């Protein structure tokens, strides 16, 4: 019957919302500070951010051989 299946569906919705409402959250200021700290800690290891010398970068331009 459609009304009992709507009730079952709504019960699931309410159950899910109760679950989500109950989780522990931290302040944005704290979460943001930790995101920032992670960036700072890893910045020097990030080749797309701080670069790699072309001699070690595997995607350096393909060299064309030439006879001197």
């Amino acid at each position, binding site marked *: 019957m459609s*009304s009992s299946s*709507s*009730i079952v569906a*709504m*019960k699931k*919705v*309410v*159950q*899910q*919302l*109760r*679950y*989500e*409402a*109950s*989780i522990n*959250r*931290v*302040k*944005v*200021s*704290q*979460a*943001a*500070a*930790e*995101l*920032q700290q*992670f*960036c*700072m*800690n*890893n*910045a020097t*290891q*990030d*080749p*797309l*951010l701080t*670069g*790699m010398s072309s001699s070690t*970068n*595997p*995607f*350096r*331009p393909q060299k064309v051989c030439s006879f001197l």
Partner: protein
Amino acid sequence: MRSPLSPEMATQEVPLNETLAHLKTESETLKLKLEEERAKLHDVELHQVAEKVEGLGQFVMKTRRTLKGHGNKVLCMDWCKDKRRIVSSSQDGKVIVWDAFTTNKEHAVTMPCTWVMACAYAPSGCAVACGGLDNKCSVYPLSLDKNENLAAKKKSVAMHTNYLSACSFTNSDMQILTSSGDGTCALWDVESGQLLQSFHGHAADVLCLDLAPSETGNTFVSGGCDKKANVWDMRSGQCIQSFETHESDINSVRYYPSGDAFASGSDDATCRLYDLRADREVAIYSKESIIFGVSSVDFSLSGRLLFGGYNDYTINVWDVLKGTRVSILFGHENRVSTLRVSPDGTAFCTGSWDHTLRVWILMC
């Protein structure tokens, strides 16, 4: 480190009120409560916290390899853990494995369907998974023998009731996670094809998924046409967090490298960052001049840069902390449909409706 929430908390309870009207009222009350709880902790914006951080200078990134060979739109690509091989899939039904250093094609498979929207490399590098309009995800072991017919060893793993939009191996070659136009995600055992867990909660097609970095435990995030991004517990099948701030389909989701946040890209022309511990959106990456949808997003290794592939053929590079764009990259001659940073972060690869893939690096 976030500790996963215990699903049992939701079931020990006061009996739910039986009538539909009461349930609807309770649902509205809970939604308001969720908004209030999230708002209470919204004491500052991410870019304000990042004010003291040094700005990024000029970024020059260029294409260093162009992979040509697909006969139609490139829809998806993935890197091998060896940081040099790439698998890509196309509207013409072909799946190609490339050596990105040399641009040589190492393997090619023709799928029985067109629009192969999803492909993924196995962690071992010994197999690839793919699927699309066939509603399945199939695994092909890669043979060292170039003459061997790959299609002969094909293993059908996942079966959905609508198109396969994304797939990813978990930490091993043994399990695959899929998302589908049928509105669900699912976890499968590769060997037996058995369904291990299914994930219900999206109200429309699921378009994308990403697994949390292994240190953060067994969760993944999915995005869909219902404008929602859902975070799931892989063991229980429970949706543990849900975010609905985009104004249109979410085409791509990707975890921040620490696992504490994830980014999304949408048809609403914005990318957004959601922090999992604050349980809210903490940044929007947008400009008035950007009006075309984002098809795919990925972070650089440190999480400072967010790369977005757009339907206006460009790639926009964002400073994740400050919220500003640091570069716009041109090169593709049609929509950018897929984008991934390489496993060691030295390069990123884009695939496009212009039939090609490009590998980009930072020039310095």
